[in-house]
């Protein structure tokens, strides 16, 4: 959590396109210290339009990455999609404390639940602590949206696909949550859009997970 960098210009190293609308932006680390779960505020240099993105890379990587999905009417996500290696990026942060408690637990003993690009903070956590005892339930529309699945321990991740039957579970992640085996001792971390988080919170509480073991980060 020792934030060395507050606001600076970073250099783009690589843009990795995962699908037509989703990409990973890799840029210089500039010795920034961060904890998994923290986010950065990004934009083109000099622009007043900046957006928050969770850090996707791990604490031991010598670069920084964020996972971005281009959204309709999304000014920054479209601007950044056209950025090229060597271009500059304005970066503020790191901010936040979403996974602070999880990062202090060694080994993990945590359940992560995400939808879409909400997987980013958990990817950062797993990259940072690959030996931790995590479980990840991740909801996407189809298998193509299951990004970088080989970065996770296969036995620890359950991919729920709502629009094809290529995942570990065919259907919405909330449908899976209704029947999944839940360890009441594990802290639960939810990240994604607010509707998914609200539905999942209701299910978790109905299934006996205490509210004080549930942590959320809403993507907007």
């Amino acid at each position, binding site marked *: 959590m020792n934030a060395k960098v507050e606001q600076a210009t970073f250099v783009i190293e690589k843009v990795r396109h995962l699908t037509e609308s989703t990409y990973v932006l890799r840029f210089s680390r500039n010795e920034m210290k961060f904890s998994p779960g923290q986010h950065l505020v990004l934009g083109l240099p000099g622009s007043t339009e900046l957006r928050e993105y969770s850090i996707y890379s791990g604490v031991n990587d010598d670069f920084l990455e964020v996972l971005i999905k281009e959204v309709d009417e999304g000014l920054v996500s479209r601007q950044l999609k056209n950025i090229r290696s060597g271009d500059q990026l304005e970066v503020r*942060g790191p901010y936040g404390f979403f996974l602070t408690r999880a990062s202090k637990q060694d080994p993990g003993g945590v359940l992560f639940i995400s939808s879409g690009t909400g997987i980013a903070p958990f990817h950062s956590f797993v990259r940072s602590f690959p030996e931790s005892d995590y479980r990840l339930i991740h909801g996407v529309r189809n298998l193509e949206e299951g990004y970088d699945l080989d970065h996770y321990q296969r036995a620890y991740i359950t991919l729920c696909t709502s629009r094809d039957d290529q995942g570990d579970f065919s259907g919405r992640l909330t449908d899976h949550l209704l029947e999944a085996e839940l360890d009441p001792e594990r802290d639960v971390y939810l990240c994604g859009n607010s509707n998914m988080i609200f539905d999942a919170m209701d299910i978790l509480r109905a299934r006996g997970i205490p509210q004080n073991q549930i942590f959320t980060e809403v993507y907007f």
Partner: protein
Amino acid sequence: MRYYLMTLGCQMNLSDGERIHSVLKGMGLEQSDSDENADLVGIIACSVRQKAIDKVYNQVARWNRKKNHSNLITFISGCILPDDRERFLKLFDMVFPMSEVNHLPEMIRSYGIASPASLEIPFSGIPKNEQIFSLWNIQPSYRSTFEAFVPIQNGCNKFCTFCAVPYTRGREVSRPSSEIFQQVQDLIERNYRSITLLGQNVNSYGLDKGGKEIGFAQLLEEIGKLGTNSGKEFWVYFTSPHPRDMTSDVLDIISAYPHLAKQIHLPLQSGDDKILVKMNRNHSLEQYREIVQGIRTKLPEATLFTDIIVGFSGETEAQHRRTMDAMNEFSFNMAYVAQYSPRPGAASFRWEDTVLKEDKRRRLHQLNEILSTTASLHNSALVGKTCRVLVTGTDRLPGYLKGLTEGKINVRFPATQLSLVGEFTDLIITGYSGLSVEGKMAPIQVAALATDELNLQL
């Protein structure tokens, strides 16, 4: 050479304003109570509500018209969103963040206002993170002789989705505890009666220093000890804490030290867990409830204040009713209820403002009705009791003075002796009305005053 400074917004801005006054007076400029006769005019802006920003635009338009027939220099600082900053650059002569206030003499000098004092102040190229520290090092020109603010922290890392503070004031930076103790000690020696520790999230004090600074609980404890050792009477407040960082040791310490006032301002914002998630408050209603239970157990005499937003994006009637339930359950002494308005720069600005204005007004009214009931309940229980009160000034009602109890409940009482202002006195509470109470001076206080007056006549 005269200057006029308009301060909008919160106590943090008022505190920052006290330092700007010091800088300008240090340059040899004279303060003016109105902008009519001033040569230099400035605003400390607030971006929390659109109304405050509208006021800035109206004011600067007036000043710029005045420039057609007089020499006037304008500046703006404070909480400014990036979009507004771009516009202000075209409207004001100087736009700068509070962290650069120590460069103000240099900036003013570049406009040709060169007083002998200003010429002696060198330009200092202090690194960015150090600059906020240099602001704190400026001795403030306090607005009051008995109430003072002490900034302990600047900025915010919490990123509540309705708020733009992280974008206007930057990330949390804690002021060194040694400086805080020094300022508090100075205020104690100058017989200040009410000292308020200020910050956007006071109870995350020290967390940005990675273990190299004490935490909030220890900071309070040390200030509590300063009080005990001083032998003087004063109350220390803090605002605002975030429920997420409210630890039980803070309550233990408040309980242990009499100078730490038994009044807690704990923003709730909403009584609905899903709205709290959407606001990115990072705590649930249950967690808030546990803190309140801790307050009621450890500080049974403490008053409890809160902030609530009604009509947040997507708030349904059912969710609003849960906030009403929470208001009834927590029985606040005071609640600052605001209608939600999307702020450019805050994350929620990108969401639809779904609740109609008339519904927001109704919801606000409903919560204020509940507040009126719970506050009346608390205040009625004070009737007949003797309360220690800090007298703060003359009341609007002729023949009355006003003051605050330790729990910051407004009091008025029949008296006209201005010598009481800024002093503590004992009042017997005789009645209550909504959010305030009325009292009369305890007989022993009346006798003491009569003796003082007699001595003066002799």
